[in-house]
């Protein structure tokens, strides 16, 4: 009997110790991430003084994401056109299709889906690259040469992501609206004039488009910061880098969705 009690106490102690360890680890990581983020902001002078570095990174995270963003935007818009038409025609208001497609893309789907695609296309690449640079000791080599890796490697990638994200979201929304137009007007035959004019009267520049742009900038900051941090913090092994890449995609997708809720609650609360 005392043996079993002893064993039980031991398991309990282990569990409590584990919990404490994990909590401590979490707090430690949050603190480190904050310091890392501030370091990026402090060293971003280089990213603008040597803008060539940032442009190079914009090619990798922005230009190379174009295909996936444009194709998905087109298809999302086409699906919205089909589904929206199905629902709206039961109320006899097919002309409102333009409003439905434009508002859902500009307010929500454009920034959010573009951000999710950006996280899995560019965020994972950033993490893998920086993690591998760390594993092959390129970052330490830079420090040996008195080159700050945060200024030379991390900050340009950060600003490239922050600049690319709103552009990608705008392209996503624009191709999506074009896709909705293709399906709604060209395929189904909704009146073209009322499609555009109803859209124009319902979509407000400040309330809808500007808020969408603000959202995508926030998502860009969140995704690139998480991707860079996970890469910089990755254990310098093959396993560590692969784990960090997975964590980037999971964490930044969750961050995008959670931030989207918070931002939407702020932006569209008292609206109509």
């Amino acid at each position, binding site marked *: 009997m005392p043996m079993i009690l002893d064993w039980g106490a031991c398991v309990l102690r282990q569990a409590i110790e584990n919990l404490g360890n994990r909590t401590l680890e979490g707090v430690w990581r949050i603190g480190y991430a904050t310091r890392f983020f501030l370091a990026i902001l402090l060293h971003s002078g280089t990213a603008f003084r040597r803008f060539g570095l940032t442009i190079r990174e914009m090619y990798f995270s922005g230009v190379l994401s174009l295909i996936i963003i444009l194709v998905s935007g087109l298809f999302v818009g086409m699906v919205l056109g089909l589904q929206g038409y199905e629902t709206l025609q039961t109320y006899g208001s097919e002309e409102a299709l333009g409003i439905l497609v*434009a508002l859902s893309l500009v307010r929500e789907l454009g920034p959010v889906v573009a951000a999710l695609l950006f996280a899995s296309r560019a965020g994972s690449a950033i993490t893998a690259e920086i993690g591998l640079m760390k594993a092959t000791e390129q970052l330490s080599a830079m420090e040996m040469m008195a080159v700050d890796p945060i200024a030379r490697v991390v900050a340009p990638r950060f600003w490239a992501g922050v600049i*690319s994200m709103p552009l990608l979201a705008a*392209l996503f929304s624009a191709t999506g609206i074009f896709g909705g137009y293709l399906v709604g007007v060209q395929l189904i035959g909704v009146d073209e004039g009322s499609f*555009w004019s109803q859209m124009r009267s319902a979509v407000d*520049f400040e309330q809808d488009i500007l808020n969408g742009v603000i959202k995508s900038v926030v998502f860009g900051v969140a995704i690139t910061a998480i991707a860079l941090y996970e890469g910089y913090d990755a254990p310098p092994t093959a396993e560590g880098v692969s784990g960090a890449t997975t964590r980037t995609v999971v964490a930044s997708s969750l961050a995008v969705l959670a931030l989207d809720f918070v931002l939407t609650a702020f932006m569209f609360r008292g609206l109509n």
Partner: protein
Amino acid sequence: MNKTILDLWVGLFVIAGIAALLFLALKVGSMNTVNTTDSYEVVARFENIGGLKSRAPVKSAGVVVGRVADIRFDNEAYEAAVTIRLDKRYAFPKDTTATIMTSGLLGEQYIGLEAGGDSQKLKDKDRILITQDAVVLENLIGQFLYGKAQEGAPQ
């Protein structure tokens, strides 16, 4: 610093992104908010505004001439004070009637302005004196039922 093919692609990307933003701003959206500089405000008081909301259109003869800027409850008169922001280009006589109307059967509510015959025009911070409340469907049905019951009652 050399120009590279990379710069070209990034340039194209940025131009396409800005073009998409412009497309959204000009073709998809519009500046619904009337500029404060070329507009004037008048106040109309209603006993019941129904479902009227801030930013709802103000129309005259079906043309949008302004927007509802603000709605507040006047605790002294127990009325709704609706501030209307009108475009400077349009001037209305002092005895203009403001009516709360509904576009379509279930559509949004808006304020309709009907010009009167006064030679003096409404100025900034003026008050529209003649107003007509929103039609509340429940009251309408109630009146109808009451009328029906009266008809059926023995004299």
